[in-house]
C-alpha cells in the first residue's frame, strides 16, 4: 500500500499527488515512470515521475483526468492509499552536457518535462523550455519550470497567455535566429514530451536541421516490464518496446502514425466503462 500524503488540483483537469514510496524515490531518475494500480479491480496505469524526494521518501505524480482510471485516481484524497506502485521503470533519460538543450512539452507533458529540464540544467546545459497549453487556465507548473531553465516560452492555442500558436512556432523563431547569427549554435538536443501530434510536429521540424531530437513515448502498457509487448512501436523500422527499450527514442525514427493508431485500440471500451460508472 502506498499512502497519498498530499493532493492538489493544479486546475480543473490536472491533479498532483505526492505518495510515500521510499524505495522508488531512492532510485528514481529523470525520464522514468511508474505503474500504479488503484485497487483490486484496477488496471495497470503507467505515469511518468514528475518529481521525487529521496530524503522524505516520496514520489510526485501529475496526471490529467483523461479516462476512467485517472478520474478515479483524482478522487483519492490525502491519507488514502494506492494499492500497488511499481518502479522506477524504463531507461532514464541520457543526460550529459550538450551545450544547449531545448525541452519542449505540451499539456500535462509540462509536468513530465520538469525533471528532465532540471537534470540537463544540473549537467551544465543552457536549457530552454517551450511549453504549449490549450489556454492560460490549463497551464501548469509555470513557476517551477521557469526556475529550472535559462529561457522560458509559453504558447497557448487561443492566445490567452504567452504567444498564440504552437510550440513549433517558437522552435521556428529560435532556429531562424540561429540561422541568421554567426555566433549562436543549434541546440545539442531537443527533448519533447506530450501529445503525439505535438511530438510528431517537433520531430518533423527538427529533422530538417538534423538536430538530435528525443521523444518520450506514451503508448498503452500492461505489465511495463517487457513482457506483454502492448507498448511496441516502430523505431528506425524495427519493433521496440517502449517500457524497456524506451520510453525515450530518437524522434526522427519513430513511426508516430502507428503510435497514435495503437493508442486508439481501447477507445470503445474506455467510453463504455466511463459511461457505466458515470
Amino acid at each position, binding site marked *: 500500500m502506498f499512502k497519498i500524503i498530499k493532493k492538489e488540483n493544479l486546475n480543473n483537469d490536472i491533479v498532483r499527488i505526492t505518495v510515500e514510496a521510499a524505495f522508488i524515490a531512492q*532510485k528514481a531518475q529523470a525520464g522514468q515512470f511508474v505503474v500504479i494500480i488503484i485497487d483490486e479491480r*484496477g488496471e495497470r496505469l503507467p505515469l511518468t515521475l514528475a518529481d521525487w524526494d529521496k530524503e522524505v521518501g516520496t514520489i510526485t505524480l501529475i496526471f490529467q483526468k483523461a479516462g476512467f482510471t485517472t478520474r478515479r485516481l483524482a478522487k483519492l484524497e490525502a491519507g488514502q492509499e494506492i494499492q500497488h506502485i511499481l518502479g*522506477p521503470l524504463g531507461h532514464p533519460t541520457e543526460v550529459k552536457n550538450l551545450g544547449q538543450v531545448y525541452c519542449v512539452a505540451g499539456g500535462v507533458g509540462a509536468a513530465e518535462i520538469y525533471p528532465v529540464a532540471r537534470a540537463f540544467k544540473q549537467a551544465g546545459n543552457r536549457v530552454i523550455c517551450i511549453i504549449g497549453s490549450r489556454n492560460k487556465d490549463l497551464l501548469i507548473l509555470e513557476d517551477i519550470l521557469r526556475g529550472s531553465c535559462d529561457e522560458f516560452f509559453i504558447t497557448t492555442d487561443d492566445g490567452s497567455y504567452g504567444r498564440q500558436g504552437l510550440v513549433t512556432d517558437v522552435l521556428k523563431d529560435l532556429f531562424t535566429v540561429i540561422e541568421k547569427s554567426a555566433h549562436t549554435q543549434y541546440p545539442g538536443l531537443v527533448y519533447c514530451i506530450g501529445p503525439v501530434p505535438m511530438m510528431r510536429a517537433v520531430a518533423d521540424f527538427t529533422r530538417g536541421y538534423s538536430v538530435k531530437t528525443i521523444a518520450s513515448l506514451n503508448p498503452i502498457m*500492461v505489465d511495463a516490464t517487457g513482457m506483454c*509487448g502492448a507498448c511496441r512501436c*516502430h523505431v528506425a523500422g524495427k*519493433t521496440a518496446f517502449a517500457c524497456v527499450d524506451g520510453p525515450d527514442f530518437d524522434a526522427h525514427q519513430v513511426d508516430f502514425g502507428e503510435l497514435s493508431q495503437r493508442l486508439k485500440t*481501447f477507445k470503445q*471500451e474506455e467510453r463504455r*466503462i466511463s459511461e457505466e460508472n458515470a
Partner: protein
Amino acid sequence: MRNKTPQQPPEERIKNFLEVALGFSESEAQEEASRCLQCKNKPCVKGCPVGIDIPAFIKLIKEGRQKEALEKIKEKNNLPAVCGRVCPQENQCEAVCILNKKKIPVNIGALERYAADYALTHKLQPTANSRQNLAAKIAVVGSGPAGLTCAADLAKRGFKVTLFESLHTAGGVLVYGIPEFRLPKKIVQDEVDYIRNLGVELKVDTLIGNTFTLEDLFKNGFKAAFIAVGAGLPQFLGIEGENLPGVYSANEFLTRVNLMKAYKFPEYATPINIGKRVAVIGGGNVALDSSRVSLRLGSTAALVYRRSENEMPGRLEEIKNAKEEGVALNILTQPIRIIADKTGVAGGLECIKMQLGEPDTSGRKRPVPIENSNFILEADTVIIAIGQNPNPLLPRITPGLKTNKDRTIVVDENLMTSIPGVFAGGDITSGADTVISAMGAGKKAALAIEKYIKEQHGQNNG
C-alpha cells in the same frame, strides 16, 4: 480401465471460465489408485522431474489417507495442485508407467490433483518443520514455478527467504499465462499461501534490477540470490502488419484476461478488445489457451500452424479439448502478412499453404511453402503465440551477469551464474519449457544454495 476425470461438456464450458476438468471424487480416486501395480522398481518416479514417490502416495490415497498422501507428495513437490493440472504427465511419469504398455497408464496427474485438492478443501495443509535454523537471508527473484519451489525448499531448510515479484500478484506464468479454466487462480493462491506459511516473505511490486539491484540485495544482508525471472519476452513473426491495432502477443492477450480479469470488464477496469473472428498463430499450449479464451469471450477461433497436427507442441489433451470446443485448426499454414481493414485495424491474415519436407534440426519435418497457394483468412483479432524468449531486463542491467547468445543466463552445473552467490534456473536458463522442469530447477538451486551457504559461512551461523 483407466479412470478419466469428469469434464464440463464442451457446449457448456465455452460459455464460462470455470475449470474444464472437474477432478476425482473419493471413490473414483480410490478406484484409480487401486489400479497401481506398486512396482518395486518404480519407473514412474524416474519419469518425474522432481522425483515424487508416486506409488507411495497412490497407496495412501487407496487407503483413504489423503493428508498423508499429500505430505508424501510435498516431500518433493511444493505445488501439487498446480502440477496435477498442468504437468504433461503423458510424457513423464505416465509415459513410463508399466500399464502404459497397454496404453492405460494410471492417471497419476488426476490423483496428484485429488490429494492436493482434498487437503485444500478440508484445510489439511501440512505444516513443514524446519530441520535447522539458519540465519542466512536468501533472495528469490521471480515467483513463478521455479521461484516458488526454490523459496519453499529453502524455507523448509530453515533459511530466511524473501520472494520478489514484479507483478502485483505472485505466481508468474501460473497467474498471467495459464487461463482460469485450466488452472483456477484460487488454487495458485492457496499454493502461494502454503509457501508463505513456511515463512517465506513475499514482496510484490518489486522489480529486481530497477527497484533494487542485485548489489543492493547483497548490501542489505542477503547471502545468496536465485534468479527465476522466466521467459517472458514475446516473440513476433516480423511480418507486415504485426503492430496494427487488433494484433496482440499471446502474453498481452492472456495477461489482460487472466491476470487482470478483462473477461469481467467493466467490473474489472482492464479492457480487452476482441473481434468476432480470432486467428491465433502457433501450435503450443499458449496458442491453444489463447484460442480457447477467445471462444469464451464470444468469438470464433482459428489456429494457424505451419506444421501438421502431429508436430503441434501442445499437450494432446489440450488439443483434444480445443477441438471439442470448436477451435478450427488450420495446419500446414504459414501467415505471411496481416492486412488492415479500411479503418486501419487488423482485418485479415494472408497465409500460404505448406507441405512437410525433410526433417530439420529439431527432428521434425520441415514445412515448405506450396507456391501460389496464398489465401486470406478473415480475422479482426490476431494473436501471436509462437514462443517467448528469456527476460532480458535483469541481465541487461546487472554488470557481470553473463548470458548466452540466446539470452539465457549462463550457469554452471550447480546453477551458479557468473556472479558468486547468484544462482539462476527455470526458463531464464533453459529457454521456454514446462512448469515442472522449472520446478526441478528450483529444487536443484535450493540444494546448491544450501551447500554454498554452508561452505561460505559455516554450518550454523548463516
